[in-house]
């Protein structure tokens, strides 16, 4: 299964895959019954709270917790001293490479506090009020240091240094002097100089984007219970219970088998719940107190201390012939990593020009640390930033060439066999289909009024596979329990159950999908990278096919005929060799009922490393109107078109496209972190960190195109991440067409837009 592609079933008549049934966990979620991270209570439970640095950059001279420990009702107090320091080495954790030296410093500051909100100590007490009081009694002696927030400033030779021991990786020879530049990466193809020499038109611009937060509505929360003998239970809201187990076991020096992690229902993640913040602290506090400890972040803590994605500076230069063929593309990306290395600059580089078929291309990226919270993954990490810049320049190129922007993209679109800038050739991909669907869409021809404009942009994301387990347990009544290891954030229980029912030929309602804890399945990588419907789907199909084989074997035994003469269709074992040529038939439920007598329980297991994820490409159309007197931009109409490979449950595919588009609208128009002179966040809440509200947006029309992924039994591609890639450029392009001003800085908030309009009028006057 790993390496041999399964026979694609895309021609087969499908009964369930592709339909829109109600999700199996739906009723729990519309009645308030579903248990999210903060919804669990245990007897004798303590409340844990975190003391956080008020400074953006400060050396920690000492921490005195004696007064807090002495407070009546305080059961545990921890600092970095309660965790063993770990060496700087990159260790694989599933698909991730993790530097535990950094991770142990991010969960609790050691030598230095590196951003406002950096955790410094934590307490557990009998009530939240006592815990809060205890935090006030902890005395931290800080030596405040100069801080640096901006990526360009952080790269200056005389910039305040976050890590005295950080030497840039990826430049030969390795620099003798430490710097804030963690890494340099480069991808290139062909000959840039020769390519630009062939160009008739060259467009070159620099872009600036701000860090933006994933904005999940559920704050981080967990409940840890460590017993006197070191056995531990952890309930938490996470995208990956197995990854949490790996991280926490390493940070606390525990054996994996001693720690059982259960993923609660998760109230949004978008990449932000792929790392640990409270979990290791709650475990350490519980280990000290030998009582359960519950910790929940406030919204302020979420903004101050959990990972946004990078702010960045991106320079892009593209040249093309008069005929509209791109001859060369060059880009320089500088991404903020936050306080520790690990920005998504690498995927940013790889995605930058991925939608295009280019002979001469170069992308250079820098991963730079600054005094901000460590970035975490956010939906197509790195891609929206670099593709915003590239898709804006492509649009300007089309203007200069007097070409329709979709036409220009079609002339250069990547397709099967195109060599990506990062090396390999693409398999079948659906960019051309999305561009043609966009051009054919009524939206593209709809009339526009004054101060209104239409924008187009495309987007690319790889999608991933990875380590995945799934189990199907056949009950004696013929119903099936499906156990998956990937938390369900957007309806994946439905899509997995649908694939299982399709394979087994039974009604969907006979399959009950549950998310297993780390004790019930083998290691399963997290819900992320748009991998769940692909990877868990692949595992579920393999497990189902194992069940089908066992069912056929039992039928063959019962009928005393060879396995080969038993087929499986419509949920029944059938043998063509019946009396008088009449086919024998045994429905699944019959075989299940007698399973005990025919060889024991019937269970299908799959433990795979899913390979062959197919990239998903999208093209978005947007109409905007600009109020020239106030600078306010209104989104009038939006259409998202994307290649889903195959939409298992089209409603949830559309939901991913709509949700990603609106997150992109927020990124484009209003979302940004605002820091004061001292590096303190001025808008750590939903009042002034402005994610789109219901009245800000129109209906988001969707068009799903299906270019099946040959490596998946149902042709599935991941769809979750690509939709956040095109919106920023699509909107900036639309604004340019509305008022003739090209915005290269996000967000396009009313004060910025009005200033640009006034500056332009001043120049013209």
């Amino acid at each position, binding site marked *: 299964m790993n390496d041999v592609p399964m026979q694609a079933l895309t021609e087969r008549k499908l009964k369930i895959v592709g339909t829109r049934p109600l999700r199996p966990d739906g009723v729990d979620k519309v009645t308030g019954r579903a248990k999210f991270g903060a919804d669990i209570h245990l007897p004798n439970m303590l409340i844990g709270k975190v003391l956080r640095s008020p400074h953006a950059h400060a050396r920690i001279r000492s921490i005195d917790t004696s007064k807090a420990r002495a407070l009546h009702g305080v059961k545990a107090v921890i600092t970095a001293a309660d965790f063993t320091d770990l060496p700087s080495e990159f260790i694989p954790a599933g698909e991730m490479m993790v530097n535990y030296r950094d991770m142990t410093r991010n969960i609790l500051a050691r030598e230095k506090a590196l951003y406002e909100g950096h955790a410094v100590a934590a307490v557990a007490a009998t009530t939240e009020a006592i815990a809060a009081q205890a935090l006030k009694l902890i005395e931290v002696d800080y030596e405040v240091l100069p801080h640096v927030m901006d990526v360009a400033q952080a790269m200056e030779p005389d910039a305040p240094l976050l890590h005295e021991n950080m030497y840039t990786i990826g430049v030969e020879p390795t620099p003798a002097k430490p710097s804030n530049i963690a890494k340099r990466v480069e991808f290139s193809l062909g000959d840039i100089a020769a390519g630009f020499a062939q160009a008739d038109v060259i467009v070159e611009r620099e872009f600036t984007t701000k860090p933006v937060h994933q904005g999940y509505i559920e704050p981080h929360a967990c409940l840890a219970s460590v017993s006197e003998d070191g056995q531990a239970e952890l309930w938490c809201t996470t995208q990956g219970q197995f990854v949490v187990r790996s991280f926490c076991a390493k940070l606390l020096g525990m054996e994996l088998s001693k720690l059982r992690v259960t993923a609660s229902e998760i109230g949004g993640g978008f990449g932000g719940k792929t790392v640990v913040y409270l979990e290791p602290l709650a475990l350490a506090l519980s280990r000290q107190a030998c009582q359960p400890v519950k910790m929940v972040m406030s919204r302020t803590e979420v903004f101050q201390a959990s990972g946004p994605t990078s702010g960045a500076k991106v320079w892009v230069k593209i040249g093309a012939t008069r005929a509209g063929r791109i001859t060369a593309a060059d880009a320089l990306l500088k991404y903020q990593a936050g306080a520790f290395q690990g920005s998504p600059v690498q995927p940013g580089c790889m995605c930058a020009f991925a939608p295009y078929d280019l002979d001469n291309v170069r992308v250079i990226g820098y991963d730079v640390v600054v005094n901000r919270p460590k970035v975490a993954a956010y939906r197509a990490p790195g891609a929206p930033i670099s593709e915003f810049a590239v898709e804006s320049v492509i649009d300007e190129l089309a203007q200069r060439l007097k070409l329709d922007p979709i036409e220009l993209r079609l002339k250069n679109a990547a397709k099967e066999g195109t060599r990506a800038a990062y090396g390999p050739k693409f398999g079948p991909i659906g960019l051309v289909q999305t561009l043609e669907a966009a051009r054919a869409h009524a939206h593209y021809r709809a009339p526009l009024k004054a101060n209104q404009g239409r924008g187009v942009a495309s987007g690319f994301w790889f999608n991933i596979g990875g380590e995945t387990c799934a189990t199907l347990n056949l009950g004696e009544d013929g119903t099936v329990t499906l156990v998956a290891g990937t938390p369900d954030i957007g309806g994946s229980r439905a899509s997995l159950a649908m694939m299982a029912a399709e394979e087994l030929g039974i009604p969907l309602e006979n399959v009950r999908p549950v998310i297993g804890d780390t004790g019930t399945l083998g290691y399963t990588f997290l819900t992320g990278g748009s991998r769940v419907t692909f990877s868990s789907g692949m595992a579920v199909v393999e497990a189902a096919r194992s069940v089908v084989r066992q069912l056929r074997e039992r039928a063959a035994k019962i009928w005393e005929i060879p396995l080969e003469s038993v087929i499986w269709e419509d949920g029944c074992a059938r043998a063509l060799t019946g009396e008088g040529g009449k086919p024998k038939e045994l429905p699944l439920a019959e075989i299940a009922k007698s399973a005990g007598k025919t060889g024991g329980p019937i269970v299908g297991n799959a433990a795979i490393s899913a390979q062959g994820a197919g990239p998903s490409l999208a093209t978005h159309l947007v109409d905007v109107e600009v109020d020239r007197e106030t600078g306010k931009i209104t989104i009038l109409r939006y259409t998202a078109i994307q290649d889903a490979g195959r939409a298992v449950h089209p409603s949830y595919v559309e939901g991913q496209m709509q949700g990603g588009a609106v997150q992109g609208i927020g990124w484009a128009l209003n979302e940004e972190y605002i820091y004061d002179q001292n590096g303190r966040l001025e808008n750590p809440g939903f*009042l002034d960190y402005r994610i789109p509200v219901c009245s800000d947006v129109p209906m988001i029309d969707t068009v799903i195109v299906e270019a099946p992924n040959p490596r998946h039994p149902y042709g599935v591609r991941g769809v979750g991440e690509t939709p956040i890639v095109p919106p920023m450029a699509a909107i900036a392009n639309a604004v340019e067409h509305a008022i003739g001003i090209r915005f290269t800085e996000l967000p396009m908030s009313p004060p910025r837009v*009005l200033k640009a309009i006034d500056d332009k009028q001043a120049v013209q006057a």
Partner: protein
Amino acid sequence: MDYRSPGSVQEAVTLLTAHNGAAHVLAGGTDLLVKLRGGFVAPEVVVDVKAIPQLRQIESDARGFRIGAAMSCAEIGEHAALAAAWPGVVEALNLIGSTQIQGRATPGGNLCNASPAADSVPAMIAAGAVCEVAGPDGVRDVPVENIVTGPGRTSLARGEFVVSFRLPRPRPRSGDAYLRLIPRTEMDIAVVGVGVALCLDEAGLCTHARVGLGAVAPTPLLVQEAADALIGTRVDAAALNALAAAASAACKPIDDKRGTVAYRNKVAGVLARRAAQIALERARGGHG
């Protein structure tokens, strides 16, 4: 912290006076509870004034309207006669926060929270609203524009609180309007807010006008120069431009996370003009 819910104005005054300023009035709680949670205030006692009848009713008579200071904005919005008489004031009250906030937020709280950006205050100022303030020395009348003295500061003495707002009967051929600029369509604090009330004579000349500005200075402003730009005119393009210029000139804003000085100065003028046009339509539509 203790919680008390007095049933009369006198009882409330006694409680507020007793605690030497360590008592805090609780009306809708939409600002107070956020401050409590953030640890920005730590009162000994919160005095919930919603059980006091006078604060929970709207009375109207020949002289005008008396709005209880602890009515929720949603309740006030449902008072048809008030909405018809002072649409700008009611619109401003109904712009405060979300539907959920509307169910709790009150005009008294919006004023006494003393935010320069409070939505209802510029509209109340334009409408010429007067507060009935109760305190240890009895009851006194204070024009709305004289309550807020700075961000988070009011002219109320210890033990005093706002019982109600009085709005006159609108004159014939009068109209009011409130507009604000927020980055989104909802859920934001005003970056600029402008309230305009004006009145025309039979000939269509503006005989009376008041203009209130919010979020452009440490306190909401009553801008006489802006009103003067309208009075005696037909509220034509020239007058509207003069109004915009006067409104912009009156701003003393700061750069902050919500907007820049330049932005606020310009948009104050833009919104003043737009609000005046709406008020003019309403005046011509004929009120009262």
